[in-house]
Each structure stands twice: as C-alpha cells, then as structure tokens.
C-alpha cells in the first residue's frame, strides 16, 4: 500500500464514465494533498480530481481519455521518488547464504500481491519473484506495474499534445482565418445527447403567447415588500414554474416518460431550469416545486444557477427532473423550438417580453407579450394534451390567482 491511487470518484448512479479533460499536473510532478490534479468531464458535470496525499505522481491515463468510475488514473508515491523499486531497496543487510529450499515454485501469493494483481491486471506468474524460493513480493508487483504503465503512458502523452490549439495548419502565412480546437468532451456529449433526443423522440412544438401584464403588475405592487421580507427579487421564473406544476397536475400525461416498452408516470414535480454556463448548458433541478412557495423557488433557482455558473454543481443537482423550462428570452429570442431534455417528454421555452399592440375587448392596447413554445414527445403526449398544457400555463400567467385556486 505504499502508493496512493488516484481514482475516478463515483458521481451518481447514472454516470459510469467520463473524460479527463485536462491534467493540471505532469507525470513525475510532486503533488500536495488537496491539490487539484485533473478536470473530469462527464455528460452532466465537470468536476475536479483532488490529490489525497503528498508525493510524486505517476499518470496512468492520458488527457482526453475516457475513464470509468473507479478507474485508477494515477498513483501517488508518498516516498517522494518516482523511481521504480530496485534491488537496492531490498534488505540492506546482505544474506550470505540463501540456498534455495525445497519449496521452489510455490504458487501461493501474498495478500498484497493478490490485491495488486486484481487491481492492475499484472499477472504475478509472469514475474520473476525476488522473495523466498522465487516468490513474487509486493515490491515485485509494484515494479512490474510501474514498468508497464510507463510503456503505456508515453504514446498517450504524445497523442495528447495536438490538443493544444493548432492554428490553421493549411494557411501558408499562418494567419488565423480559422482556428481549430478539439471539441471539449462536455460539448461533444451535449452534441450527441441533443442529436439523440431529436432522433429518438417524435418531437413537435406547439406555440402560444402570453400577456404578462398581471405578473408584471404583481411584481410592481409587491416587489418592495417581497425584497424586504426575502432579501431577493421576485422574478418571472417562479410564476412560470408554478404555472408548469399547475399544468402538469391538470395534464398528467405530460409528466411521464418512455422507458423501453413502458410508460413511467411521475407523481412528483421536480422542474429543471436550464442555465447557461461558461462550460455549456446545464439543467439543475428544483425539487418539490408543488410544495415550495414562490420565494422558495426563486431562492432555489438563484442558488443553483449560481453554483452551475461557478462550476460547483453536483450530479445530484442535475438528476431526476420531470420537466424543463428554458428561457431564451434573456438573450432576446423572439421564438424558438427547444429540444427535449431526454428522457423527459416536454420542455417549455420562454422568450423575450416585448410590448406589442393587442386587441382586447375590441380595442387595441399595448401589452407586454411573450411567445411560449412547448416541445413535446408526440409518442407519448397527444396534441390535445400539449396544447391544453400550454394554454393552462398561459392562463395561469395571465391570471395568477388561478395558481392560488389551482384551476
């Protein structure tokens, strides 16, 4: 147990592998306990690999390599030397007469040898043992494993080098009309998941528009007392979240998903809220929205979105949502068709609020209007359900007292 193993930590049941996006240390570096060693990207989150001891690190996985949860990606030698054990490290006192005894060729292996064999795949029977009667010792196994991983990491490091930005290799002048950068693993995963969702589901989008006068009126009227009480502002998201919960209750078919040949109906209301982060889109989940107050939902969103942007999100924050709300309006989008967050069956797209002339009771009035888009999986959700759902959302936003009465 002289070497500390650096393993990919478990991150939740749905994640079985990830990609080493970047090593922050080089092979042979001296690392300190708690030091950030590498960035691990999974399809959901990016996390850091932390050293659990001081010593000299030996990397066992290349940058960009796909690694499994629990896989050993490096070892840390606390002795502070990266040299493989040599004969010098054997007993410093010389034995004068060590004649081989009668038990040569014993197949019994010590517990440490068995452990290293199981963990590294080094086969003790392939090694010339230095122990009594040729037995393989733990030191023999460590040396064999070190020799083997030195061989395998070398080409990997070479292969990893092109990752550093190659500037338009075809340009004779070297001026950058194009730059190329390998797709980050997180980006690649987002890409493949979106394509998957689009290919897998029978995706369709229904639209509507909503008049935000009532919500804006409420916000204006109560913002001051809301802030005074809670310390943060009343936004739009809590209204939409509540409206979605209300609509899901009215149209339970939307709160369901396909799992193989079965339809799984969800009886809970954990709503995902898409957040744009420097690393890409993330969808942290707000739990039990049906029981939370508006203030509770607002504070949850603020807290989780902040962590998502800071890269401090955990996998648990991302798992288990039944429905997603995405707001392209903050970037000014008038109208778009969101893609499902599989395996969910529907996603609500919010858009920019613009004042538009509307006909109300035979008169043209200016109203703050937003287009709504509901993309849904038509395999599971009928058009009637989808449209009804979206109308329910619209009605609740236009007349928030419906949320109170749950109608």
């Amino acid at each position: 147990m002289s070497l500390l193993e650096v393993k990919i930590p478990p991150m939740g049941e749905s994640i079985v592998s990830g990609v080493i996006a970047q090593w922050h240390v080089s092979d042979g570096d001296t690392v300190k306990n708690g030091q950030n060693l590498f960035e691990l990207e999974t399809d959901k989150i990016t996390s850091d690999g932390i050293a659990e001891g001081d010593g000299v690190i030996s990397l066992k996985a290349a940058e960009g390599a796909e690694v499994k949860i629990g896989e050993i990606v490096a070892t840390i030698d606390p002795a502070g030397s990266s040299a493989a054990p040599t004969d010098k490290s054997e007993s410093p006192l010389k034995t004068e007469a060590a004649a081989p005894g009668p038990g040569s060729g014993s197949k019994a292996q010590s517990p440490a040898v068995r452990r290293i064999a199981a963990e590294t795949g080094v086969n003790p029977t392939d090694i010339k043992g230095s122990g009594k009667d040729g037995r393989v010792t733990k030191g023999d196994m460590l040396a064999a494993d070190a020799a083997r991983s030195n061989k395998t990491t070398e080409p990997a490091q070479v292969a990893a080098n092109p990752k550093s930005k190659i500037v338009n290799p075809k340009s004779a002048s070297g001026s950058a009309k194009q730059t190329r950068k390998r797709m980050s693993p997180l980006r690649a995963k987002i890409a493949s998941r979106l394509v998957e969702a689009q290919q897998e589901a029978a995706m369709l989008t229904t639209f509507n528009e909503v008049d935000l006068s009532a919500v804006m009126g409420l916000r204006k009227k109560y913002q001051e007392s809301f802030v005074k009480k809670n310390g943060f502002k009343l936004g739009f998201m809590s209204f939409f979240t509540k409206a979605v919960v209300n609509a899901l209750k009215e149209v339970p078919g939307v709160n369901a998903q396909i799992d193989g040949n079965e339809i799984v109906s969800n009886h809970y209301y954990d709503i995902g809220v898409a957040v744009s982060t420097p690393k890409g889109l993330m969808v942290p989940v707000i739990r039990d929205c049906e029981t939370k107050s508006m203030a509770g939902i607002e504070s949850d969103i603020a807290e989780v979105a902040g962590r998502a942007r800071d890269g401090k999100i955990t996998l648990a924050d991302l798992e288990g949502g039944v429905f997603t709300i995405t707001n392209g309006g903050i970037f000014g989008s008038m109208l778009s068709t969101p893609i499902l967050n599989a395996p969910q069956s529907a996603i609500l797209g919010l858009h920019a609020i613009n004042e538009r002339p509307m006909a109300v009771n035979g008169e043209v009035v200016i109203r703050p209007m937003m287009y709504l888009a509901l993309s849904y999986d038509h395999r599971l959700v009928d058009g009637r359900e989808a449209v009804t759902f979206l109308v329910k959302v619209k009605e609740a936003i236009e007349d928030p007292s419906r949320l109170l009465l749950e109608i």
Partner: protein
Amino acid sequence: MSQSSFDLIVIGAGPGGYVCAFRAAQLGLNVALIEKHSALGGTCLNVGCIPSKALLHSSEHFAFVRDHASAHGIEVASPKIDIAKLMAKKEAVVTKLTGGVAQLAKARKVKVITGEAKFTDAKTVKVGDESHTAKHIVIATGSAPVELPFMPFDGETVVSSDHAIGFDTVPEKLVVVGGGAIGLELGSVWARLGSEVTVVEFLPQIAGASDKDIVRNFTRILKGQGLTIEVGAKVTGYKDGVLTAERGDEKLSFPADKVLVSVGRRPFTDNLGLETAGVELDEKKRIKVGTKLKTNIDGIYAIGDVVAGPMLAHKAEEDGVAVAEWIAGKAGHINWDLVPAIIYTNPEIAMVGIGEDVAKAAGIKVKVGKFNFAANGRAIAADTDDGFVKIIADAESDKILGAQILGHNAGELISEVVTHMEYGGSAEDLGRTIHAHPTMSEAVKEAGLAVSKCAIHAL
C-alpha cells in the same frame, strides 16, 4: 588410550551444539557430542535463558500479588518470598529440560561424551585419555561472561549472571553494571523480589540496539518498577561496598552489597587446542568462519556464540541445523538478517531486522507504522496496555525491513513479523492477514496497516 571415530563430532552441548548433533543424527550421521559439564544444554539451559526465565516468571507472580492483585479485587495480606523454594522451582525447570535433551540424545543415538575436548590435530580431539576422530568437527563452545579487569568476579559480591541467578537471599542493594538484556532481566528479577536495583550503563541508553522511542518508554516503565537507571556512566571500581563511576567530570557512587557485571559475553575458545588444529581467530578471539560456517581448516566448522554475530540461542540453533545439513550434503539455510532479539523484562522488547533509527542513519527510505497497545482491547483487559508495535517498511516496495515491539509478551508477538519477512512480505501483507480477536497480536496487524496510514483503531 582408546580411539573411536565418527562422521561428526560436536564440541559443546548448548543449543547450537546439541541441535547440530540431533539434526546430523536425523540425517543419518554417526555423531558424538562432547560436553564438559555433566548436564547438557549449555549456558542457555543451565545458567542462562531458561533459569532466568523461571526467575522472571516467579518474580512477576510475586510482584503481581504484591503490587497489582488488589486492583483486581484480590486481597492478599503481605505476601512473602521464599527464596529457597523459588530457586528449587528454577532448578526443577532446568533439570527437566537438560534431562529432556539427554533423553533425546539417547533416542537419536548421539554419543554423549562428558569432558573437556582438545584438538590434537585437525581431525582428532582428545577428551581425557580418549581420542576421537571425525571427518567433520563442529566447534560450539559458546561464550562466557566478560569480566571487568579492575573488579574481577569473586562469586560473592562481584558476580556474573551465573551467580545472579542463584543468590540465596535478596540483596538489599544490587548494582547492575551493563544495561543489556541480561542485566535488565536479572535486575528486574531482584527488584521485584525487593532489592534496591541500580543499573549503570556506559552507553547513552539502555537496551542499546533499540530505537530511541522504544528505549524512552522502556526506561520510563522500568523506573516506575523501582529500578534506578544511570546511563552514560563509566564504572571505575568497587571498594568497601561502594561501586564508583564517572559521568564526565561527575563522580558517582552507588552503595551495593552485590554487583552484577553484565557487560557482555566473550567467545569461549580457551584451552581447545585451536592453535594445534590451526583454526584462526579474529581480533576479538572469535573463530573466523567463511561460507557455510567453515573455518580456515577443512572439515572444521564453528557455530553460535564462538563466531561473529548475535550471541543468541536461537541463532546458534539455526547455525547448528544449517551446518549439519551442509555436512550431510543438503541445502542448509539460515538468514542472519532475520534473527529476532528479545529482552524478557515486563514489558518485553522484541526486535528484528533494522530499526527506524538505524534505517534513517543509513539513509534508507522507510515508512514506519506504529500502534499502541493502549488501543488494543485484549491489552486493556489484561492490564498490559503500555507499549507499542513498530513496523519499519521500505518506502517504495513496502517490504518489511524490521520490527520493534515494546509490550507484554513482545517476544511471542515478533515471530509472525519474522515469518512475513522471511518470505519477503510487505507491511500490507501483515495488515491483510487475519489476526484473532481479541489478541495482542492485532496490534502487530494494525502497525502493519499503519505503515500506509490505514490502521483501523488508530488515527
């Protein structure tokens, strides 16, 4: 004058000699075993290991009854010691064991010859009027206590361990010169029986070969048992019931009605006719041996205390077995790196391989795992929770390089570490081997785990 001839003659029937003779007989050799004393077993059985252990056990019982029984709810009104009976018990132990050796010799058809042996040539030894020849002769004559020239043994007040195992009264003030295994063990015996014991050691620490942390704790414990420990003190003489010593410019004096001089043992090579046989000695008068324990004279071997190396019975035994096997054409084996050494005080010190201090001084990169008996359930239950186990392992390969144990029965606990080491085992191997619960041996396992900071019952 008669003459007989053998395949092998072994001179000296101590643990090295008799074991060598027995092993050779097992392998079919015609063996003679020559011993000057009537009882077999040598120093170890007669005046060394065994009688001192008998005394240590008896005196420990006495000390328990007197000092500790009450804490267990056992009330005994002022226990008394009967020295004559105590010594008789010791003698019974010795007689039983030496008799056992004689019986085994007879059963193995080893010819026991009583008398002093002297080489007349390289193939012949003379005992009294009889000459005995053999193709192979093993010298196993052992060692004798070293005398201080300015205060020779008189057998009455200035004594060796040979006498200190047989005082007929408890000395009022006993000064022990030399804080090694023998001095500390016999010092402990007489301290428990009521003597005021002072140990005077020339070196800066008692139990010389042990790591400093072991010695520090050991010294504390012995002081707690009433012994006075004086280190760095050079003994200058004994006169009118006072032992004098110097520590630098400081003059020390210790009143003593008995002085046990236990400053070491010298190889016993006198009057053996070694010059006649042509056997070479080294500068310390030890018999020089090369590979397979051969002396410079073909057919003559030497084992145990008469050759360089630790003067320990178990080492001599292994020498004896190995040399018998080599003589018989077998693959004898002995690993002199792995001779455990024990001090049988209470608690005991047990050591094997290299210590932490030695490793660090030699620049060997090691990791040390330490586990206190204070966190061991059995030790707590048995009131033996003072001390600890240390495993010293190679920093890279985790191979165990040594162990030091301070604790009750440490001598029994060290064996498994020696076994692991013999097979090239790592500290992890020790830690992954099941140890019965609740036993003190669990502390050995935990110390193995502690090498990689994985001890379960310690932080």
